[in-house]
């Protein structure tokens, strides 16, 4: 949708850092890879509108199911280190990010994002590798901002400009898009929209069953291993539970060792033996270390952007004899 350059020469690419800094700098891709300490982090990348099609009436945005997410190992350099190269002035308070993409129509606001300086932390990196290779071109080649734990609207692709400001910048894609109601339930109704909104930012706790998929035929009395992934905004997954009785009772699934870190997919598995033939509904529910858990799908409340859906996932399999 935006205008994306179809050719980027890595030998000439650089990130420009200016604004409230001691000395504006341009850092080439080569310098980024050579002059800074490389760091790696495994993190989920998820659209704020993942599973948006579950909301009714239709909220604005792409109507996708739960596939708008992934998890990868990112390698790059700390944003903090890059900013230090330019040196932040005392009055620095916001960091603006802009990539090489441009809106198709010049009057449309560009996709510019900003982060409050107080939210800067060591895990935020500028990545030049994904899973051990250069970033795939349309995933933001040659460098992309990685904000583990935050939805992907913050993960600016083809990052080319960083501008430090002393006041909160006015930006369409910060002030009007990617926001949820600023109330306890983060909810509203089409007839009664919340007067105040806040940025979507940190991902809520979520889990999805990857196997079996709905419609799969399984054999009665034979072991069935349910598998899936769980994640949150970086607090870490404490447990994943499975229910086969519509959510009345729950049994704990086995989690992987968590060695990929708190921002990564935590995979789970649960073995069951379907006792009866017919349709079997399997549900998965994750809880994070803060005790936050997922609501039943029918209890998820609406918001106009269709953001942050995390209803309990369920699959229906056919048990045959």
């Amino acid at each position, binding site marked *: *949708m935006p205008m*994306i350059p*179809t*050719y*980027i*020469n*890595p030998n000439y690419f650089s990130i420009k850092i200016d604004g409230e800094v001691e000395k504006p700098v341009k850092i080439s891709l080569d310098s980024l890879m050579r002059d800074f300490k490389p760091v790696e982090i495994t993190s989920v*990348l998820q*659209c704020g509108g993942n599973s948006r099609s579950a909301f009714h*009436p*239709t909220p*604005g945005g*792409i*109507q996708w*199911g*739960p*596939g*708008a*997410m*992934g*998890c*990868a190992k990112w390698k790059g350099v700390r944003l903090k280190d890059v900013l230090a190269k330019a040196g932040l002035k005392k009055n620095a308070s916001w960091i603006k990010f802009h990539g090489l993409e441009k*809106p*198709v*129509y010049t*009057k*449309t*606001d560009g996709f510019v994002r900003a982060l409050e300086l107080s939210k800067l932390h060591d895990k935020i990196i500028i990545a030049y590798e*994904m899973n051990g*290779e*250069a970033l*795939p*071109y*349309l*995933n933001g*080649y040659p460098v992309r901002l990685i904000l583990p734990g935050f939805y992907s609207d913050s993960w600016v692709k083809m990052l080319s400009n960083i501008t430090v400001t002393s006041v909160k910048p006015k930006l*369409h894609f910060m002030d*009007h898009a990617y926001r949820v109601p600023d109330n306890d339930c983060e909810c509203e109704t089409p007839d009664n929209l919340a007067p105040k909104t806040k940025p979507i930012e940190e991902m809520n706790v979520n889990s*999805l*069953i*990857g*196997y079996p*998929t709905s419609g799969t035929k399984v054999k009665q009395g034979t072991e069935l291993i349910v598998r899936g*992934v769980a994640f949150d905004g970086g607090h870490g997954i404490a447990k994943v539970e499975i229910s086969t009785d519509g959510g009345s009772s729950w049994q704990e699934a086995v989690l992987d060792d968590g060695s990929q870190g708190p921002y990564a997919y935590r995979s789970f598995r649960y073995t069951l033996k379907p006792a009866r033939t017919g349709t079997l509904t399997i549900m998965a529910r994750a809880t994070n270390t803060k005790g936050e858990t997922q609501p039943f799908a029918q209890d998820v409340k609406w918001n106009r952007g269709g953001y942050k859906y995390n209803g309990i996932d369920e*699959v229906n399999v056919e048990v045959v004899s």
Partner: protein
Amino acid sequence: MKKVTMLALTATMLVTSLNAEEKKVEVQKGIKMPYMAFPMKPGKGMYSTKGKCNMCHSWGYVLNQGPQSKAFWRKKVIKMIDVFQAPIRNEDIDEVVEYLYANYGNGEEG
């Protein structure tokens, strides 16, 4: 089809992944943007709508909303004008809304 895809990154549009060796050669060619045709249903107002709604993004983005009410389509067209500055004149809004509703409507006015 939803479940399995989640394990891979949503990089379905990926065109070329480059390792250091290939980099120079591949990048100098540049990439070709993936293109998918989304035919529009023929009908009154199609050409006018085509010119207005395919300017900034694909028709697929519009189809993706599924069948919707007339009020939904009207709001969407107005959003494109107000929020993204779509150059659509006031007097042309009705024609576009009518086309959208006649061909991609859900039978409900409101």
